[in-house]
């Protein structure tokens, strides 16, 4: 197992290099660089601008810039943000944590809804409940995240108009004041509760597509396993229906669901991205958009590389989880 993990890790290195190099290459396609817009600023003269370029290393060939960035990354240093004038990591860290809150909560949401609904639909195939959830799943798969987010904002606004106070917050991630106190002065648990309250609608939006997809997979898997011989054997042994369903069918049907975390994560990062932009959640994507606007190379590279690393860790974890759930898998 350890050998497998180490092998996986070495396999990831070229992928990581390729992906970061690709991202770097794309940034080079931009017309001009971070300093270009200062050229229009009359308070900068030509020499100053050239000096700035030299300081930021923007006058070097881009392979040099990439090599510099890479060696910095290996030392745990992500460079300096050109527009914030501080270390990239200081800018990135809070944003990344905010995004992680959304992604982790969405994963919990997805699994805690899709698995029970999938089981229900499969056990009562073609019942009205099944039809209802099938329709909901189709709608959930088709609704664009950004549209859904706008609708949710409208919904929150409607509730506020109706009840006179905010049932759900209208965008954002935290309140300015909690019970009359400044947010940062409030006790930790109240801060968390406040963030959770803000996260309800964004998580529903970010998780819907994934939930809808996984519900269908879960249903198909349950139906398929229901027909297997071992289920008939279990029934013939005289096992209780509950045991047959939850210890035999579910145990096998859940394996692809666990494996799907790897596919789900990148989509979730994307889906959460739109939610962040529309609902004012201060995550990675709004910052990335801002950085793209000003061609803040190291912020872009930082957020991309950190996301890649997060995804790789996620994939590795899902593989380990899979090995734990499915003892048939051998890593040799």
């Amino acid at each position, binding site marked *: 197992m350890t050998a497998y993990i180490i092998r996986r890790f070495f396999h990831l290195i070229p992928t990581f290099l390729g992906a970061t190099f690709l991202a770097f290459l794309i940034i080079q*396609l931009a017309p001009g660089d971070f300093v270009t817009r200062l050229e229009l600023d009359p308070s900068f003269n030509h020499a100053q601008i050239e000096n700035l370029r030299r300081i930021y290393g923007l006058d070097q060939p881009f392979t040099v810039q990439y090599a510099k960035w890479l060696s910095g990354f290996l030392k745990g240093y992500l460079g300096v943000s050109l527009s914030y004038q501080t270390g990239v990591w200081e800018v990135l860290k809070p944003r990344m944590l905010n995004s992680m809150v959304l992604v982790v909560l969405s994963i919990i949401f997805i699994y805690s809804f899709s698995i029970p609904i999938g089981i229900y639909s499969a056990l009562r195939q073609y019942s009205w409940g099944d039809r209802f959830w099938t329709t909901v799943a189709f709608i959930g798969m088709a609704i664009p995240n950004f549209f859904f987010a*706008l609708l949710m904002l409208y919904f929150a606004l409607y509730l506020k108009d109706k009840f006179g106070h905010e049932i759900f917050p209208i965008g954002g991630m935290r309140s300015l004041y909690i019970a009359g106190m400044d947010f940062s002065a409030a006790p930790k648990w109240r801060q968390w509760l406040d963030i959770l309250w803000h996260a309800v609608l964004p998580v529903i939006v970010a998780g819907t597509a994934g939930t809808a997809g996984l519900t269908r997979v879960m249903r198909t898997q349950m139906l398929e396993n229901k027909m297997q011989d071992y289920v008939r054997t279990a029934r013939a042994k005289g096992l209780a229906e509950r045991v047959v369903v939850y210890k035999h069918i579910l145990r096998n049907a859940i394996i692809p669901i666990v494996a799907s975390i790897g596919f789900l994560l990148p989509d979730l990062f994307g889906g959460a991205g739109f939610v962040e932009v529309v609902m004012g959640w201060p995550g990675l994507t709004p910052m990335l958009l801002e950085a793209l606007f000003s061609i803040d190379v190291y912020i872009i590279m930082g957020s*991309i590389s950190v996301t890649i690393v997060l995804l790789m860790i996620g994939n590795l974890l899902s593989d380990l989880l899979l090995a734990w759930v499915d003892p048939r898998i051998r890593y040799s």
Partner: protein
Amino acid sequence: MADAETNLIEGLSEHSQSYWQKAWQRFRRHPFARWAGSFLIILYLLALFADFVAPYPEAKSFRKLQFVEPTKVYYTADGHLSRPYVCKVVRTRNKHTFKLEFKQDCSAHYPIYFIVHGYPYKFLGFIPMDLHLLGGPWLVEEKAQLFLWGTDDFGRDLFSRIWFGARISLTIGILASLVALIIGVIMGAVSGFYAGQKTHLVRGVFHLPTREEWRLSGGAALLRLVSGSELARGFGEARRERQLPLFLLGLLVQYALWGGGIYILWITMQGYMQVSKGLEHVIAQGIFMLLMLYMIWQLLFGRVQIDADDLVMRSTEVLAAIPSLFLLIILSGILAKYDISSSMRFMLVLIILSFVGWGGLARTVRSLVLQLREMDYAQAARALGAKDFRVLFRHIIPGALGYLIVVVSLTIPGYILAESGLSFLGLGIQEPSSSWGLLLSKAQQGGISALRDRQWLFIPGLFIFASILAYNYLGDALRDALDPRAEH
């Protein structure tokens, strides 16, 4: 049981049915899919005849009529049923709140006529016409306005712009998935077909003797290293087979690549050495030197064998390593900085979408080809002496056609979603062109509380949603029809 019986009857029936006839029968069993199909056909027709359906041209704006709510259509006048008519919208400023307000002035009625002369346009881009579905003489004379679904921030008719936007939003999905399919099929087919076979792509200048050759005759091997170089051997071979130009071209490309690689590495090293110091300097120098030596070694003695399968699969892994939204955002965010025409922008978005999306298709095609190349008919074609290209594209790929149609129909909604998402973020289609995502982004303008009074700006979102839903239903039914082996 019933299934077995019908299969039996199908087998025994007198008139045999082709694959496509059977597929059509299976497809017809899905009522939703048929509705979805009709809905999409109507949408595409409306997009095609957008000039006719829309009362206003795409870029027609009324600067003073921003965010006007949908024009009310009246059906009764003085208690009698009458031809539908509208009233003029007047802009006033509220004396107390200083807000702009739009009021209706029903002193004059403006009747709506059907199929009437209006703004001139070119049907299909070259036939001059001025017929419109709705309108009246007052519409062109701008005495009153007909905004069935309100206006946007420039005072442009949303109803008109939705149909113009449909052209882009609905076609870009199909086109992007076709381009991605072409790339994906070529890459996936090559990858699957040559899986496990290494292609001998690059050969060094000299032939390094193997240990075997050394053992047999050390002196002769040394001689071969100097005189009978790999290059000379390849040259002779190519001349004998009358493929000299090809050989020379390959040689040129190969040396250009290696030379370019070494040159880039050299520049990088020089630049890097200037800015690094201490231990980092030493380590980096070591790494650069090793890389350089490796490249020179390969140029002189190497026989680099490239596994096409490995290469393609690694590329798809690299693409998949970055979340596709981030890849889309950085690509289009960077390229959106260029000032290009709207048709070029369309092409750009198309290329970006298919560039980001081909990886998944290539993987699917690869696994298909891996299966199909072992099929009897593929083996038979090869036994008859067909070339690889012919076996691949005349025998194997047609065998996977039904499956490919299903895959494409299932990827189209994803591309529609991606395009509207990009345009929504302001990175895709740009003003003054129109696309559903761009139109929906207007709902965000003026803050969240503005949403309360501008509900009509949600309409483009409904269109995105409905077309994706329709494509999903269609794709599901197509999968049942064309790929009966798949589970559902």
